[in-house]
């Protein structure tokens, strides 16, 4: 019989594989979502994100009302500070340069993209770099905290907040359905409509929240991988890095009284069981999908141009720095935090938008020179 943490690990591994599979089929790419606002003036994928957030919100709200949620607010959401906005800006620029967010990089890597493998390496390196600056950054976030509350519902009545938002959002979504704005012509074989994937992700996120007491998150998993690598390569230095020795959360479960401890330490803990499992699962699921379609493409014969590889490496590093500065990435904040009306999540998105604009500008300026006239 497996212990609790191992059960969570294997469950999330399986859920991650489903995620990777459907992400590969639908290319529901969050970097693309934000980038295309500025690059193409297109908001199709952004509507899908809105749908996903609203459906997740309904699930979490009902689960809360039924008393199924043990930890609320979940301990992997924290206090918002100006650092959250700054992290969002860095992250937004990074995801455009890397060609994918922390999730996009995984599923693209699973399908054999060399650029995303380089971005993945950037994410690990960026996490290790952040670890060196962590004590200084911690002071900044502490001094610039904006609120004592984690969720808006701690400041005002939960029902009064959530129900009007859900009604208003449902009207918008119904309107989009009538105008057929939630689907788009697609040509790729085995394509799954992004709106279906949005709902699948919401269901998976609910399962993850109920089974592991925390909604979906993934970016600290990268820091954890960095910890294992640094521990193996430079153990003397590793021991002196405060970041790798400090848990991100340590709470007692209100019902079972079991300790829930997780963080970027090089040990098998709750975070290993929830996040490393997702990282492996998503890569695996996408790999399976690509093989099934005959689209796995890992080959040196189409090695990407140098500028794009540099961009991917820098982008990956910025993704890691941004998510560590903010205390989370787009997965935790947009897929899980927004549906819970987390203040941190709102500030992160507030930073991500100008960040994606900066990333798009830098990409057009330095990687592929392009303006409207194509000069």
């Amino acid at each position, binding site marked *: 019989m497996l212990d609790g943490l191992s059960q969570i690990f294997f469950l999330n591994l399986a859920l991650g594989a489903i995620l990777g599979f459907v992400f590969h089929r639908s290319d529901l790419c969050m970097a693309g979502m934000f980038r295309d606002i500025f690059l193409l003036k297109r908001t199709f994928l952004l509507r899908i994100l809105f749908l996903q957030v609203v459906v997740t919100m309904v699930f979490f709200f009902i689960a809360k009302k039924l008393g199924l949620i043990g930890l609320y607010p979940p301990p992997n959401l924290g206090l918002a500070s100006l650092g959250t906005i700054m992290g969002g800006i860095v992250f937004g620029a990074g995801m455009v340069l890397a*060609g994918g967010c922390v999730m996009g990089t995984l599923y693209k890597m699973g399908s054999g*993209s*060399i650029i995303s493998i380089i971005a993945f390496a950037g994410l690990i390196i960026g996490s290790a770099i952040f670890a060196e600056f962590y004590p200084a950054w911690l002071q900044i976030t502490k001094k610039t905290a904006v609120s004592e509350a984690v969720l808006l519902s701690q400041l005002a009545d939960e029902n009064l907040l959530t129900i009007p938002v859900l009604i208003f959002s449902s009207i918008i979504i119904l309107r989009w359905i009538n105008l057929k704005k939630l689907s788009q012509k697609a040509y790729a074989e085995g394509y799954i409509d992004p709106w279906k994937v949005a709902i699948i992700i919401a269901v998976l996120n609910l399962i993850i929240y109920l089974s592991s007491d925390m909604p979906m998150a993934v970016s600290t998993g990268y820091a954890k991988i960095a910890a294992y690598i640094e521990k193996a390569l430079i153990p003397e230095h590793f021991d002196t890095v405060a970041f790798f020795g400090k848990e991100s959360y340590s709470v007692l479960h209100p019902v079972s009284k079991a300790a829930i401890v997780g963080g970027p330490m090089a040990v098998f803990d709750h975070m290993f069981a929830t996040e490393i499992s997702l990282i492996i699962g998503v890569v695996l699921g996408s790999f399976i999908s690509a093989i099934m379609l*005959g*689209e796995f493409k890992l080959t040196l014969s189409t090695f990407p*141009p140098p500028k794009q590889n540099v961009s991917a490496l820098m982008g990956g590093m910025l993704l890691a720095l941004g998510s560590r500065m903010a205390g989370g990435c787009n997965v935790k904040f947009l897929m899980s935090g927004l549906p819970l009306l987390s203040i941190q999540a709102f500030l992160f998105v507030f930073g991500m938008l100008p960040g994606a604009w900066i990333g798009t500008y830098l990409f057009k300026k330095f990687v592929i020179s392009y303006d409207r006239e194509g000069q």
Partner: protein
Amino acid sequence: MTDKIEINLDTINLDIRGQICPACLLISLKEINKHKETLRCRGANLVVKTDHRDATRTIPDAATAMGYTVSVEKKKGYYEITVGLEHEGRQA
């Protein structure tokens, strides 16, 4: 590359396999703009080879908005996106 393209008026080939968005899209848009005359006046097609699934959504989307006709065909391990005015029996 440009000299050869002037000789072969039927197709302009662009192989961007191994690359992902936004590079795929930007390179394709650049080529479409660069060969605007050839594509619009001489009835040539731009044929983009890509193994990035997302490009089969973004490139047709952008090219259609620019007034071109687009078709996508799956080949062995990659997609071929044809951008032009007069392919597949369509009248210019």
